[in-house]
């Protein structure tokens, strides 16, 4: 079972205590966006076989949203951080690069 540590309340929760919220760091296209950009925002997903950044809500706990960096095959968790950010923290990116030197980056 997947276990993640909520960065808000510090509780290490099992996946039954959490609600998954899909791919993180999607950037909503602005009013000048083309149809293709908006389609991409709404539907196209990275769905990587490797490092995923995904939104989770500590639904049966503090109720806050956070983001987890995780490997989609091994389920190794690299870290979690609050959802109020537009990009992953630099130290987490360093951690992932150290673990997977061939990693192509989060974008």
């Amino acid at each position, binding site marked *: *079972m*997947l276990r993640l540590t909520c960065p808000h309340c510090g509780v290490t929760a099992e996946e039954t205590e959490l609600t998954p919220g899909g*791919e993180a760091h999607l950037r909503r296209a602005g009013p000048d966006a083309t149809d293709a950009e908006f389609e991409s925002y709404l539907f196209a*997903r990275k*769905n*990587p*076989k490797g490092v995923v950044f995904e939104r989770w809500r500590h639904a049966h706990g503090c109720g806050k949203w956070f983001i987890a960096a995780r490997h989609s095959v091994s*389920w190794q968790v690299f870290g979690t951080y609050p959802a109020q950010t537009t990009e992953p923290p630099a130290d987490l990116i360093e951690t992932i690069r150290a673990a997977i030197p061939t990693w192509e980056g989060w974008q």
Partner: protein
Amino acid sequence: MRRYSVFAIAREAMRYHEGWERAWPAPTPKPRYDVIVVGAGGHGLATAYYLGKNFGITNVAVIEKGWLGGGNTGRNTTIIRSNYLQDPSSAIYEKARSLYEGLSRDLNYNVMFSPRGLLMLAQTEHEVRGYKRTVNANDLQGIETRWIGPQEVKDLVPMINLHGPRYPVLGALLQERGGTARHDAVAWGYARGCAAMGMHILQNCEVTAIRSENGQVSEVETTRGTIGCKKLAIVVAGHSSVMAEKAGFRLPVESMALQALVSEPIKPMIDVVVMANTVHGYLSQSDKGELVIGGGTDGFVNYSQRGSWQHVEETIRALIETFPPISRLRMLRQWGGIVDMTGDRSPILSKTPVGNIFINCGWGTGGFKAIPGSGWAMAELVANGEPGPLAADFGLERFREGRFIDESVAAGVAH
């Protein structure tokens, strides 16, 4: 290819069964094919088979990173039905179901299609209304389904508990021509059919890169060398996004684990397929006597082909109220497969941004039942370069244009 028949069995019985040949050979890759199908699961093999049978295209390779039928084709709960609400879904699933009826004869391979009847239990008022609506829709689509009351459910499934305190059985949608088939045999039968037409099935051959020239696909790099092709069909279910990334585009698909489990083998106790969508479990009995039980998917991206314990618990807990005898059974094994989920829970059969690359994916939790129809429609798309009537509504452009085929709302659950 030597045909299987009662005479062949008699002949081999006379000579210690030494004359059986391999069902399909293990060829060396040619430098170039007219069509390469990536993925030797049911859908990929069916695509190749109907390319040859319906369009005469036989210079085809089906390449597979693992072993034939080792992905979701070998991991599902083998349910076949076509009682869908939306017209495009009904059309392609009913095509598949009707092809299943004649498939053993067509392939000269026993796929053990068993039209034993399929019940979808209504356990809430909402479901009663929903299934009655589906019965009416199926009537208009020419698909035989009917609504039955609780007593008829009890007659069909004697072990059922109609009066569960939380989820009483209020009736069911019955598709009498639905049922099951032997999942491995479907892949093996199609593979043998493809090989008989001279197609190459290349196992343990993983695609590592897809190359294109002037926006048209030209070749694939594999672990067994570079192979050229005029057309490429990507039919890889859970790994569709991985292949799409190699070709340079993204899909509206997320890969998640779906799991199933079987009990120890017991004497016959249920001779229909029962789906209970409110509590989210489905149940049938295999020919070996095991109860085959399926449940829901994980909600997050996962490529690990493992199950999650809490889903086993949830599924069994849900089924025990309605099927009390299974509380005494020991579960024999459980496994997971990686399914490709689209937002509207309907498949994608489509052209792609790269010329002459076609994709067939997004069957999510319900791909097995669709194998023959999916292969039929995909072969048409690959051969003509344009979708035929079965695939027309399932293009990638439906997301941009807002023309969803919304089976997630229709079914209320994964299906």
